């Protein structure tokens, strides 16, 4: 595969801004960017995206930490749960009807969005 540093840096910049702005990883930008712009397969795109998020989320965390806008107690508890949950998820991945789960989850996101707009 041809290495395209300019495209990769531009992709990282965009994902970093979105990630820092919203407190998310930025995979929503990196994964489609790698697939559509750099010719990655979906699997390699997901794996590579997670690796880049270590750096961008660490950088994004710094201003929030300085500002005192991090609840470290909550972060530690959530992290412990998330690591167990993710490894369970990897195991049951093929046993859950993904389509139904995706639909149910999308509805949940719409409801959350509505609540955040109206709140």
């Amino acid at each position: 595969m041809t290495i395209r540093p300019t495209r990769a840096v531009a992709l990282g910049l965009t994902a970093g801004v979105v990630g820092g702005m919203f407190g998310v990883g930025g995979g929503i930008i990196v994964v489609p960017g790698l697939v559509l712009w750099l010719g990655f397969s979906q699997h390699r795109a997901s794996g590579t995206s997670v690796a880049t998020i270590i750096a961008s989320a660490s950088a994004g965390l710094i201003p929030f930490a300085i500002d005192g806008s991090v609840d470290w107690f909550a972060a530690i508890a959530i992290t412990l749960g998330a690591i167990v949950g993710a490894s369970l998820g990897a195991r049951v991945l093929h046993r859950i009807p993904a389509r139904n789960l995706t639909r149910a989850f999308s509805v949940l996101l719409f409801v959350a969005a509505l609540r955040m707009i109206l709140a």
Partner: protein
Amino acid sequence: MIEFASFLVLGLVVGLIASTLGIGGGVVFVPALVVFFEFAQHTAQGTSLAVIVPTAIAGAFAHGRRGRVNWRIAGWIAAGGVIGGLVGSAAALSIDPDMLRRLFAVLLVVVAVRLLSR
């Protein structure tokens, strides 16, 4: 203690859902902390980033072992990501929390539509 347990359960549920659907946890942590735990928008986002860093390390390790990480490209993206992350976070902190919460809702709708269309 009860508080610790409820955060632990939040992480567990989100980790399970996110890994099954192949999405990041941040997009769920932020609204969950705001809606269920009554976090301020900025604190929810900062806390979400604090969770994302160690979980991404664990994720990258798992993907790396299966040979699913292109480390060279990842390095270039990370270089841009560090600058972008600093800029994005600084911008978020300077935005009014109510405005930021509504912008976040727009992001949620985008994620939901993308999930439905795949």
